[in-house]
């Protein structure tokens, strides 16, 4: 452990305002969690499933794509310092744990009510489990780094099954801490964290450093076939690019830099959407027979969950856009209008199978399905497009070299601006939830949403300083 080196790494990765806001979030989560737990405010089963699910995602990502990530500046300067590789690796490993701690506070904060009960022991075990889980995830990234592809798949598969077993009541798994088996779950988690840390420390001298840029480059594969834009009018070129290949901006962390350039063909998404819609249409009546309330909630839950997914996806704005090419070729207002239209139509197309399922559900007696159709086809796409617009205006970020700015480096002001981009999400969420009580509210929200989209697309006012603002912020 090299004190100065460690301090330098912390300072170059985390801003003070971020650490302050993280602690603030943690306090809010804990107060909310303890209030919810002691007063039985929520049915904790939602949080339990969320906890297991998110742990599966984190551990499998660590197993399949784990490595110690360094920045380009680290590669150019830090790695050239006369410091032993093992010392460097140890410091980077500890810094990565801090990074995971911040991410995990944001991800797991919501499940605090599931952790806590009226018993004092749960309050003591909460921080211990939290740290143990973070250390386990981080250690798996180091251990997986030296494994072959096949072994990574075996490790990832094992971890997924092990965590899933918690849902069946198996107590000897880290997932058990979310499912009520706090004692056994904690014991298994702490032992796993300790064992994995020992193994990770042994592997540190063999660890491979990779920059996020390199990961992004590795992921940037050559296409088998070029898409052609020959003989297409500008609208169809924009439509073709943005409709048939829905871009997934992904999270803005170095670890997920690869994801930031994902674009998935709509045909694949449509196939998935159809399969899911059929499963949904078959499962929901089955659940409804067992529990009427859960059946109704299922109808509301579908647009809410899709709203959640698309809002997160669209909140990165025009991350891949190139102003020097598109805005000098077309009027920026017209170009952006085309993009909004293409994205909105892509979402409506994707949600169409779910809307058809909801028509079927309406005819078999689910009254709320009618509101869900309006939510799916109007409110959710409009909300996503509003999020895209707001994110572009409020906090434009451009992906230039394969990695956007890491969230750990954002200032408090930037973080607050990002929160603003959630306004359409929360507005739509409230409207969808209220629709289960008052169906008329969903119609009013749909009309307002459509009006807003038309205003954004055709009004000159929002676009007056749009290009100027983007360019001033370095968007070229």
């Amino acid at each position: 452990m090299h004190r100065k080196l460690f301090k330098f790494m912390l300072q170059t990765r985390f801003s003070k305002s971020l650490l302050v806001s993280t602690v603030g979030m943690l306090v809010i989560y804990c107060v909310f969690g303890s209030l919810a737990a002691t007063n039985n405010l929520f049915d904790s089963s939602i949080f339990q499933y969320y906890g297991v699910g998110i742990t599966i995602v984190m551990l499998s990502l660590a197993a399949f794509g784990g490595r110690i990530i360094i920045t380009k500046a680290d590669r150019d300067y830090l790695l050239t310092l006369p410091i032993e590789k093992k010392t460097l690796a140890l410091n980077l490993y500890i810094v990565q744990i801090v990074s995971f701690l911040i991410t995990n506070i944001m991800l797991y904060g919501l499940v605090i009510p599931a952790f806590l009960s009226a018993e004092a022991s749960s309050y003591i075990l909460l921080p211990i489990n939290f740290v143990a889980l973070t250390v386990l995830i981080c250690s798996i990234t180091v251990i997986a780094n030296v494994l072959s592809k096949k072994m990574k798949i075996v490790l990832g598969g094992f971890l997924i099954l092990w965590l899933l077993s918690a849902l069946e009541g198996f107590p000897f798994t880290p997932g058990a801490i979310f499912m009520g088996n706090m004692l056994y779950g904690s014991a298994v988690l702490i032992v796993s964290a300790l064992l994995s840390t020992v193994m990770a420390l042994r592997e540190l001298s063999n660890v491979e450093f990779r920059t996020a840029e390199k990961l992004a480059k590795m992921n940037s594969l050559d296409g088998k076939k070029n898409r052609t834009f020959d003989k297409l009018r500008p609208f169809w070129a924009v439509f073709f690019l943005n409709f048939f290949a829905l871009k997934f901006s992904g999270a803005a962390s170095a670890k997920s830099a690869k994801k930031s350039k994902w674009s998935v063909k709509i045909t694949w998404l449509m196939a998935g959407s159809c399969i899911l819609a059929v499963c949904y249409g078959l499962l929901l009546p089955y659940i409804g027979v067992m529990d009427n309330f859960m059946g109704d909630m299922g109808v509301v839950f579908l647009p809410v969950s899709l709203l959640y997914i698309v809002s997160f996806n669209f909140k990165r704005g025009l991350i891949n856009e190139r102003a020097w090419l598109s805005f000098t070729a077309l009027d920026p207002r017209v170009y952006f209008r085309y993009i909004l239209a293409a994205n909105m139509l892509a979402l409506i197309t994707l949600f169409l199978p779910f809307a058809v399922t909801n028509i079927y559900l309406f005819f078999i007696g689910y009254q709320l399905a009618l509101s869900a159709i309006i939510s799916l086809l109007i409110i959710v796409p409009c909300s996503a497009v509003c999020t895209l617009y707001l994110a572009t205006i409020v906090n434009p970020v451009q992906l230039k070299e394969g990695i956007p700015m890491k969230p750990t480096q954002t200032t408090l002001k930037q973080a607050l601006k990002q929160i603003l981009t959630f306004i359409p999400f929360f507005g739509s969420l409230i409207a969808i939830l209220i629709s289960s009580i008052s169906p008329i509210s969903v119609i009013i929200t749909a009309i307002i949403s459509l009006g807003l989209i038309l205003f954004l697309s055709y009004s000159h006012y929002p676009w007056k300083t749009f290009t100027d603002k983007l360019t001033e912020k370095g968007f070229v």
Partner: protein
Amino acid sequence: MAEQELCDLEVRDLSRTFGNTYALKKVSFKILQGEKFALLGPNGAGKSTTLKLLTGLLKPTSGEIKIGGVDPSTKKARTIMGYLPEDASPYQMLSVRENLEYIGALREIENVKETTDHLLDFFDLNEYERSKVGKLSRGTTQKLALALAIIHKPKILLLDEPLNYLDIPTQEKVITRLNSLDVTVIVSTHIMSVASRLTKNVIMLARGVIRWEGSIDALRALGEAEEPIESIVARMMTSAP
């Protein structure tokens, strides 16, 4: 009227501030059809800002810009202008050919496919045709960016450090190609040799104001016998306004 048609680019009392800082202060110049100018200046002189203002990507705080007699934000101005920013980054998720065809379609050029084929040939980009931009080297990306800037055969070319990252043979090829074009060119650079290879005239900027304007020959004549031109430029840039 005839004079206006001949004048491709006119800038009058152009100022641009960022917060309280002046990036450009009351800059005026006129460039006639077919003239080739270099915007020369040290880092932070306002060269890139000038180009962004000329393309319409930035709005002036005050002053006026006319491109072919019209405002830079008009369709006519966009049609006749080609722009290459510094460290240009084309669409990362598209391949080299897709980038060219996409911008060709947005610019409504005829024969997008043939034009793309020609540019791929000219810039030796054929082998990267299907490569995503994210995978290219900086030099190859710069070649693609140059191709994108001229895909619509613009009458006015605004180039910000066009030879950055290019190897020497490609630099020579690009210089020959740009010099053979019968277009108005403004090249922003802080390298004198780039300016003298691509242009005949210089607008020297420092701290947002024009320090000197004239031909490269006249600039050379300002120095003492056998004084390198770089030394003359350095002296003029650092001297008090």
